[in-house]
């Protein structure tokens, strides 16, 4: 049986960050993810690089953590970050008096918050509601969570970690009062295996509730569903927030070629965490509230709607979860519950994943009596090492400039290692400018097991066409890599089903029009709607 110093359960950003930190500190690491990396809340959020301002009034602790991590990520993960800056706007229906409370709280947490003239705000961000009566500028930004997760995984692997995706933990190996390992089902092959680990870290997000249950430990979680909408254009350059107590649909975040409005917050039962869907009521609410931030959203095509479940840890009976601390919860189950060799790291946010990883790794090291210190606040992630974008782009001059920039944007300094031979100059996804060599590199190096994995690694199919054409091209590359066309074809169908899941809640206007076209291609031209 294989043995590791530490086994990490969960391939979200927390698990990925912990795997990297542990590996950097010289531990032997196994990470197990039942689906693909960043498929839970890590991949279903705004992609907001919080300045912490949002929490300043209600949760100083989170706000302070956020601004510290914000400044760290802008350095160590710069290829995943877009330093857009952000606005907190006051609308005529909001209390302008809140602005002062807000700015003071920001300053207390160490967040640079500067009141600016609404006219100046409009000049900086022309999409913002022209009726604003107040504006504060803060160092918000955006971050690509898929890229961030992948970069952590890549670095963990470089430092010797083993990563198993599409592998589900079905039970823990427990001896007396000690967790000694995990039982794992390989979802691809159906094979069951056991792995031993001196420490097992539960980083399962909302699903961590069930993992803890396997050790007979109860963590009272609060599954809070958040729904979001992606628009087909990047209407705003800066993050736009409402300057009021956090509420529904009051953040608009730009990201790559799109922008995202969110969120809602509704408690859902555990059983629904795997199947949360966006309801028509949520769509209508997000649209109405979103148009208050940037009126143009009322006429902008919506690409898709999606929802994630926040792994909040319950403190009281707040029915919405808005008042629960977004703070980090790191539990040593030995001191808490008398279960040795088992840690849970949960709560927190995408923003604070690095700190969460550090806290979990510190505890692991303490248990293993390892003295190595944390270096993740200093060491850049793969892709964020030295060299400006222009310099890297020059190394790959033979592809068209847009694709070149897009690749560098996604791969950072690692783009220099891509094979941009002329023979591979084809573009797979025209909306997102993803090249053949980028797709091939992802298939070879980034744990791509199917088309959905490929989308999360490369953005194939994330653009305005939602994959109707490029998905087929990508399936062709996968068929080549698998040496098997039927799996690639089934993958393609699964991919289109998944894309549709986000489109049908917003299917009218251009989105519905595009859907008719996609339906035509997939059923009439390709014949993929056959009945078995």
């Amino acid at each position, binding site marked *: 049986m294989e043995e590791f110093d530490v086994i990490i359960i969960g391939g979200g950003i927390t698990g990925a960050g912990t795997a990297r930190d542990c590996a950097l500190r010289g531990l032997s690491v196994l990470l197990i993810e039942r689906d693909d990396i960043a498929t839970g809340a890590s991949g279903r959020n705004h992609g907001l690089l919080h300045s912490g301002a949002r929490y300043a009034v209600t949760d100083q602790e989170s706000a302070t953590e956020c601004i510290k991590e914000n400044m760290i990520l802008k350095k160590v993960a710069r290829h995943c970050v877009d330093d857009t800056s952000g606005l907190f706007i006051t609308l005529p229906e909001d209390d302008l008096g809140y602005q002062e409370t807000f700015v003071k709280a920001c300053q207390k947490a160490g967040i640079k918050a500067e009141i600016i003239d609404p006219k100046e705000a409009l000049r900086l961000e022309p999409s913002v509601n022209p009726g604003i009566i107040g504006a504060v500028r803060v160092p918000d930004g955006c971050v690509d969570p898929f890229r961030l997760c992948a970069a952590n995984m890549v670095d963990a692997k470089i430092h010797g970690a083993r990563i198993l995706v599409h592998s589900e933990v079905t039970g823990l190996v427990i001896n007396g009062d000690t967790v000694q390992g995990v039982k794992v089902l390989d979802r691809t092959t159906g094979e069951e295996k056991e792995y031993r680990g001196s420490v097992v870290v539960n980083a399962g997000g909302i699903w961590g509730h069930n993992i803890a249950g396997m050790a007979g430990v109860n963590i009272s979680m609060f599954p809070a569903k958040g729904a979001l909408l992606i628009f087909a254009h990047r209407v705003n350059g800066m993050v736009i927030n409402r300057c009021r107590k956090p509420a529904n649909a009051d953040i608009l975040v730009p990201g790559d070629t799109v922008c995202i409005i969110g969120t809602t917050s509704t408690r859902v039962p555990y059983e629904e965490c795997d199947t949360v869907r966006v309801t028509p009521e949520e769509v209508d609410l997000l649209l109405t509230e979103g148009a208050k931030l940037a009126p143009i959203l009322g006429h902008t095509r919506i690409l898709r709607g999606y929802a994630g479940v926040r792994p909040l840890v319950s403190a009281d009976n707040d029915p919405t979860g808005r008042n629960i601390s977004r703070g980090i919860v790191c539990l040593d189950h030995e001191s808490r519950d008398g279960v040795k060799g088992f840690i849970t790291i949960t709560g927190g946010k995408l923003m604070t994943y690095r700190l969460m990883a550090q806290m979990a790794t510190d505890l692991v090291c303490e248990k293993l009596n390892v003295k190595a210190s944390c270096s993740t606040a200093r060491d850049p992630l793969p892709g964020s090492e030295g060299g400006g974008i222009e310099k890297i782009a020059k190394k790959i001059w033979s592809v068209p400039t847009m694709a070149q920039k897009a690749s560098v944007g996604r791969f950072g300094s690692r783009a220099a290692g891509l094979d941009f031979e002329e023979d591979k100059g084809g573009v797979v996804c025209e909306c997102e400018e993803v*090249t053949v060599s980028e797709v091939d590199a992802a298939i070879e190096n980034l744990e791509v097991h199917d088309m959905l994995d490929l989308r999360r690694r490369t953005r194939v199919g994330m653009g305005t066409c939602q994959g109707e054409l490029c998905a087929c*091209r990508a399936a062709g590359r996968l068929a080549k890599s698998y040496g098997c066309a039927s799996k690639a074809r089934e993958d393609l169908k699964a991919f289109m089903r998944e894309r549709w899941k986000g489109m049908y809640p917003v299917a009218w206007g251009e989105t519905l029009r595009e859907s*008719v076209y996609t339906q035509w291609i997939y059923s009439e031209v390709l014949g993929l709607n*056959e009945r078995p």
Partner: protein
Amino acid sequence: MRFDTILIGGGLASLVCGIKLQRAGQKCLIVSAGQNALHFSSGTFGLLGRLPDGTAVSNPLEELGKLPGTHPYSKIGPVKVSEYAAEVKDFFNSCGVRLHGVAAQEGSEVSPNGYRLTPMGVLQPSWLAMEDVTLLPSKDELKWRKALIVNFYGFLDFNASFIAEGLWKIGVESRVETVKIEDVETLRKNPADMRSVGVARLMAKEKNWKDFGGMVRGLLSGEDLVIVPAVFGFGDQVIVEWLREMIPADVMFIGTMPPSVPGIRTQILLKKAFESAGGTFLPGDTALDPLFSGTSVAGIHTANLGSIVLSADRYVLASGNLFGKGLEATPNRVYEPVFGLDTDFPADRSKWCDPDFFALQEFAGFGVLCDDSFKAFKDGRTVDNLYVAGAEVGGCNPLYEGSGAGVSIMTAMSVADSILHGN
């Protein structure tokens, strides 16, 4: 400007109807906004591939009785549909579009469904095929034993591995090769040009298709079937014939990802047929601001012609479904944007779509409400001189049934008959 009939839409239904009317001595105008479903054609025309309950159809004309009364075929009536179906091949042939189907059963002039190999290697039932596209009589066995699949280097919209696997399932072994044609290589400098139409434009040059044919011939080693992407012959079918002559094996052209070269060719030939019969084709323009006189349309405007009124005795609306912008959808309703006609859709938005992408999708069947002679309804009353044809006609789900082209052709022929023979 005055016409006998003005047709709105430049696709299959409008062209078929327009050609019939023009040839019968009418003076017709077609207002076409731009591309239409033919540009995204599979290279085949479906009449009826499956019934609304999902049952596969092998002989469409025998199953017409099983369709609901609201279906356009039921409105036309099975006898008339059979008559029109028998006329389709000759009609298209007279326009320079050579269609073929699998052999008809004894006592019938009309082909049953055959099978087309899709770019994904799936055998899809279909009725008639354009010149270059092959229809197979059976989905269980083929007459060939070994196939050579040839693609252009770096052309991603034709995936040989899927086709090879589809063939292998029915007992045909295949070998995949790629060729480099110098001109096509230049397309790859701007990868967005590396699409079917880009390749087809270059392959229209004699040197290029001859080089291609020669390379394929050189690659052959004992295969009795050659499969190539359908990127030959924009304006006519001649290159397809020449390649067939050049290559000493059967040549099967398989559709690529859109745009569709056989489909665009068909559109070009039909438009030529309409114009050579004396019809006026107004490209790149959109009908708007109609004038009504009582319960009749008195005229229309277009986006490009400003205040000029175009009027006619009869009007045919064939501007497609949601995709062709013949219909538009907001979060609350589906409307017909030119005349404000009555439309057929569920009031509850959550009923428009099925959460499973590959299931029957209601929205693909949205259309304009019309009576049994395809006269459109507006505010609950028929408009006296306005007919609807093609995908804009409600009452069926052509995508699900595989009846898109069939509904377009049948409704076009029926409307032409009504206009000519006074209905």
